Structures are given as C-alpha cells and as structure tokens.
C-alpha cells in the first residue's frame, strides 16, 4: 500500500475513534507510530512538548508532523485530512439531530464506556513514558547509581507540583524542564 494511503487511513482511524481530544489520543498515536516505526516513544514525548509550545490542537500537530516526516508535504496533507475528515462528517450529520442524539440511551451508554476507557488508556501511556524517562537503559541496579535517574525524578516531581498545586500552565513547565536539563548538562551532571 502506498505510504500516503497508509498515512491517510491510520489518521482517519484516529479521527474516527478517539473521544475527548488531545491527550486522549496519545495512547492511540503511540501504538500507531510504534507499529509503523514512524517514531520512538522518546521522540513522541519530545513532540508532545513541541506541540504544547506551538499553537493548535495536539492531534492536528502530530498528524502534520508524522505525515511530513514520513511523506513530505503530501504526507502531512494526507495525515491531517485523514484526521479531520471523520469528525467533520459526523458533526455535519448529527448537528441537526443533536438533542435527540444526546438523549439516546445507546449514546449515553457508549459515552460511559468511552470516558472511562480513556482514563485507563492514558494511564497506560504514563507507564510506558515513565519507563522511557527513568529506565530507557532497562531496569538495572546501575540506573539507581546514575545522576540521570535522580535529575529526571527531581524535574518530574517539581513539574508535577507546579502543575497540580501552583496551577502553572504546560508551557512554563516545559521551558523550566528544558532549562534545568541544559544547565545540568553543561555542568556535566547528566550524560545524554
């Protein structure tokens, strides 16, 4: 199958099957990019940071990025159009009957399942990203002797505190994490 068609179809599936937008899409995106070898988990995490620091919806950003990496400008177009098409069509179809649609018991039941599964799916992504951040060399005792591990742990803990208790928005947290990484890198504390 041509790469452009593959891009279109993969992102079409994502557009058709992810509810809640943004971060709810990450588990699906992770599975897709790993399956095709388009990105590693680490690169995906880097891109989450880039996407947070640039305007626009995360899903649109990542479809454009992956499409461009894999198939140039045409690839970016195919992936992004694929992603946008399902919600575009579905919204136009149900916009007029939305009140009935909303009260339909099948829809309500499906929403119960979908809103719940998203929590579990993102939690699974947290686990795989956590493994990448702390144990990219595998789970070995040496990991606990390296400064890298404790620096990551420190940045993670402070970021979480700032996000949850200081209500800081993602962009300052990302820039702060980057600054700490750069400072400790040039100080020779961490090795990459």
């Amino acid at each position, binding site marked *: 199958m041509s790469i452009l068609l593959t891009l279109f179809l993969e992102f079409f599936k994502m*557009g*058709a099957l992810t*509810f809640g*937008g*943004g*971060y*709810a899409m*990450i*588990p699906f995106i992770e599975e897709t990019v790993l399956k095709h070898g388009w990105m590693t988990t680490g690169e995906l*995490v880097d891109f989450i*940071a880039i996407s947070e620091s*640039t*305007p*626009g919806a*995360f*899903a649109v*950003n990542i479809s454009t990025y992956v499409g461009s990496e894999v198939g140039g400008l045409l690839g970016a177009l195919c992936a*992004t159009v694929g*992603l946008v098409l399902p*919600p*575009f069509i*579905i*919204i*136009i179809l149900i*916009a007029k009957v*939305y009140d009935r649609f*909303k009260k339909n*018991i*099948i829809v309500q*039941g499906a*929403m*119960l*399942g979908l*809103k*719940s*599964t998203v*929590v*579990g*799916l993102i*939690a*699974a*992504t947290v*686990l795989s*990203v956590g493994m*990448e951040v702390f144990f990219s060399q595998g789970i070995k005792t040496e990991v606990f002797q390296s400064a890298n591990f404790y*620096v*990551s742990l420190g*940045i993670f803990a402070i*970021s979480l505190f700032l*996000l949850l208790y200081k209500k800081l928005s993602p962009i300052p*947290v*990302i820039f702060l994490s*980057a*600054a*700490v*990484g750069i400072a400790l*890198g*040039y100080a020779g504390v*961490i090795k*990459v």
Partner: protein
Amino acid sequence: MKQKLKLCLQLFLTFIKIGAVTFGGGYAMIPIIENEISVKKGWIKDDELLEVVAISETTPGPIAICAATFIGYKIAGVLGAFCATFGVVLPSFIIIFVISLFLRRFEDLEIIKYAFFGIRAGVLALLIKAVISMFKKAPKNIIAYIIMAASFAAVAFFSANVIIVILSAAVIGIAATLIARKAGKEL
C-alpha cells in the same frame, strides 16, 4: 449568495485567528472561541457555547475540529463548516510543517539533547495531570472503574490493540446502561 460567501470568509479568518493563538488545543480553545464568536461577532449565544463543548465531547476527533465544524455549520451550512475547520487547522499545519523540516537537523546539537532530557521528565508530569483531569470528567460508578482498570491492564500488560479496547469499552458501557435501565436502576 454573496452574503453567504462573505460570512464564510469571515468564519475562515476568525478561525485562523483562533487556531493561531490557542496553545494546548482543545479546552484551551473554548474561552477564545467564546470571545471571538460569541462576544465579538455575536454569531452564537452563551448557552449554545455549552452545546459546542458537549457535542465535541460526544463525537470523535479533536475538540478544536469538532467545535469549528459545528459552529461553522450552524452559521453558514456545510461551506461554513469547511471554512471554519480549514481555518482552525491552517496555522498549526504551516507551523508544524516548517518545524518538521528543521527539527531533525537540530536534534543532534548538545544543547537540544540536554533540553529534551529535562523536557521528557516534565512531559511525564503533564501526562499525569491529563489522567487526573480525565478521571474527574469520567463517570463515577463501579462499571466505569472496572473499564478504567481493565483498559489500563489490557494495554500496559497485554499490549492489547487500542481500537479493540475502545470499541469493547463502548459496547460494555452500552450493555451496562441498557441492563441498568431495564432493572430500573441508575448506574
């Protein structure tokens, strides 16, 4: 007809603006949509804005796309939906496409490697915050908790296919709701 085309052009330009200034996408976009569409242009009313959020949540796809399509359609039909959606996507498409041309070249720079080392740990915290906010929005009953736990275990420990997990969750949710309704109980 001429009036409609003018309206579509306005929709296109307004949504380009919305797409260009919203960082974080999704819900971050709602207050900006409110300001541009409802306060400045008076195209939709406040209670309709709530409907925009609700419809975006109950239909698949990114919230920004759903909201743009829905508002565009309400104001100027299918062409309006197209103009609004095209507008909201365009800024990020151009920006990310340009970034994608350069990113690989910068990747090997020492400073970028150090920066991303720090950033990866920070993004992990962003993801945990996302889990917490999704949990707050999710239903709170035994079926919902079982679906959350089972979805997590299926993907984390058994490498289950995400599409199958999503579809199964929808089916279980429908079955549980129908059974509860038949038994005359609230879930």
